[in-house]
């Protein structure tokens, strides 16, 4: 399997994971009432190792899905020259920054 086909497959797989994860995310954070999102409650949930594992997995999944999607769009529109390299550079830096920010939040 080459890189493009693997990207296609993983875009589908991560998409399915995200549907399940977002369902959980929305039902807890938005549809379970105000007391679920008080400071103490959120920190308590953040300190649970299972939630930490879920959050980390979710973070990596969503970053892959979002930036693999943008990567494909850049390949379609930005030609093959310097503009594409600039976009790809911005995307790589963004992914790293977001990943580090996410890990910082999870390890709070």
């Amino acid at each position, binding site marked *: 399997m080459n890189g493009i086909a693997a990207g296609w497959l993983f875009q589908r797989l991560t*998409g*399915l994971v*995200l549907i399940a994860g977002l369902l959980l995310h*929305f039902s807890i954070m*938005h549809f379970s009432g105000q007391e679920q999102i008080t*400071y103490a409650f959120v920190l308590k949930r953040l300190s649970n190792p299972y939630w930490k594992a879920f959050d980390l997995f979710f973070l990596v999944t969503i970053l892959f899905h979002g930036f693999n999607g943008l990567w494909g769009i850049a390949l379609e529109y930005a030609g093959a020259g310097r503009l594409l390299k600039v976009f790809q550079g911005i995307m790589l830096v963004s992914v790293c920054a977001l990943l580090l920010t996410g890990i910082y939040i999870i390890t709070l």
Partner: protein
Amino acid sequence: MRYKLQTGSFAWVIHRVTGISLTLYIFIHLYVLSHLKDPLKYASLIEMMKNPLVKLSEAGLLGLVIGHAFNGFRLTLIDIGASTRLQKKLFLGAFFIGGLLFLYGSWIILGGGP
């Protein structure tokens, strides 16, 4: 040459626009979450979330997520072998179920429910 805007190309445009928006939203989301360390900052963020404009954009975000998720699920079904002849029906099905979920979710976000 001009494209005729049919169901498929319409879905394709929606998928792009919602996908790009959602990826950009990750920046905002993680920026906000990175203030979780400070209870006062958290309280002021939660206070900001009660602003009607923020509530409306939250409902808009739900719309982006549902639109992208349902269309993506439809694409995946077609990719794993659902007949392309079902494409339009799948789109309409996703549109109606997603639309109902969006209305229900927005109603809760805007203060109507639990």
